């Protein structure tokens, strides 16, 4: 089967800074992949390119068979807005800072896009939203505004919002790192449930190592815009091959081992 995501010699620059340099990376359909790596290594950039939030300069990228660059495409994205629209139909993203729409209730946050984009009927969209809210355990908050929710609750709504668009690929960019430690668990719980879904491809950036080990099929260690090492989480964590990986893992997991893991998460 073809990979659902395929980066082929992708180069991404911010002005003079080259963040991805001839980057190659594939994700299979239904695979759950975690990206780890030091700050500034380009993890977010990979997700943002996939979400069409950032253009890239060179190389080939396709998602579910659709290439990002259109032949003869103009503008920074080298593709028409219509084409980008088609790509985005297959991807959803959950942000570090939730980015809920503050002027809409929880329900409307979820219903709005299916109605506007997928042309779903409003009551149909609402019944689906209700279902999703039940799944993330927030049905009783459906008429609240985001500012009335805790961070963990907001992030769960954000996940429901992304799911409402029925993406094939779901991207998570440090979904718990803006949360108070005691709220992290509830969000990870929801993601853990999602990871059970066979059809959904997940690409996850996180510093929650224990969690990454648990949910992912593959962990990729990222450094300076390249994948330095990747593989089965058990193997990678217990027996990293590269010195950079070892260094990074020991700094993240901390010297006195497991106890301090969650400490580092707080910025």
């Amino acid at each position, binding site marked *: 089967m073809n990979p659902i995501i395929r980066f082929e010699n992708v180069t991404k620059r911010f002005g003079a800074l080259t963040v991805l340099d001839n980057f190659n990376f594939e994700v299979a359909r239904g695979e759950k992949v975690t990206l780890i790596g030091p700050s500034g290594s380009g993890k977010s950039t990979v997700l943002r390119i996939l979400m069409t939030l950032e253009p890239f300069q060179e190389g080939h990228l396709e998602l579910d068979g659709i290439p990002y660059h259109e032949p003869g495409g103009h503008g920074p994205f080298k593709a028409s807005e219509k084409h980008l629209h088609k790509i985005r139909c297959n991807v*959803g993203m959950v*942000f570090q800072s939730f980015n809920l729409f503050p002027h809409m209730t929880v329900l409307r946050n979820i219903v709005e896009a299916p109605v506007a984009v997928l042309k779903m009927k409003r009551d149909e969209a609402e019944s689906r939203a209700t279902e999703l809210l039940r799944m993330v355990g927030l049905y009783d908050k459906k008429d609240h505004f985001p500012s009335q929710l805790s961070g963990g609750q907001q992030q769960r709504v954000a996940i429901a919002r*992304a799911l409402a668009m029925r993406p094939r690929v779901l991207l998570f960019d440090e979904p718990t790192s803006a949360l108070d430690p005691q709220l992290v668990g509830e969000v990870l719980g929801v993601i853990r449930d999602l990871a059970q879904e066979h059809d959904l491809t997940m690409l996850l950036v996180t510093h929650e190592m224990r969690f990454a080990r648990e949910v992912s099929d593959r962990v990729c260690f990222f450094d300076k815009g390249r994948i330095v090492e990747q593989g089965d989480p058990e193997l990678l964590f217990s027996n990293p091959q590269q010195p950079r990986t070892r260094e990074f893992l020991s700094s993240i997991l901390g010297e006195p081992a497991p106890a301090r893991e969650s400490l580092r998460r707080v910025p």
Partner: protein
Amino acid sequence: MMYGYAWDTTTPLTFAISILPILGIGLLVTLKAAAVGYAIALVLGLVLALLRRSRFRIVSWTVAGFTEFVRDTPLLVQLFFLYYVLPDFGIVLPAFMTGALALGLQYSAYTSEVYRGGIDAIPRGQWEAATALNLSRLRTYRDIVVPQMVPRIVPSLGNYLVSMLKETPVLSVVTVLDMLGLANMIGERTFEYLVPLSMVGLIFLPMTLICSALIYLVERALPKSGIPLR
């Protein structure tokens, strides 16, 4: 006698009272000009602000240059220009429309800055979330950006309404006789300027004060829908 109302100059007080109906007619003109001008400023300002964000450099630069030019030159001279020069090019707008248009143009340059600030204040994450949800540009503006921007910009927009009200007297240079223009006329006929002009000041003062108070009330009443304003 003017518009069928006679004045009585025996004492300043009787004079002041007898010219009130005439000034009232002028006040209507002032309010009408401000209303039309403000409507133009609100709509055109938004258009300019959006055009200024255009991806095409030519469009955004032209708009930037235009707003800067309008912002930096006096309304008085702009009025003369629109009223006396445009007819040379075959465009003859009625005096009132010229006045309201000039007011609207000048203030659209201001409001476009307000809109721009309001749009810039929308966190980047909101745009990105909208993109990630595949919302179209129009939808993003209509459903995400504008509703979040409005509560923030209402006070500034309101203040411009007040200053526009105060600038309407300039319209008398293009034959639109607002309250001040009529007061001047009364002065020219009676050779008594002090009373009519002071009356104009006295009418403006509570008007602008009330407007400011209204803006404050509207600002408080606007549904914030849980938007943290800072």
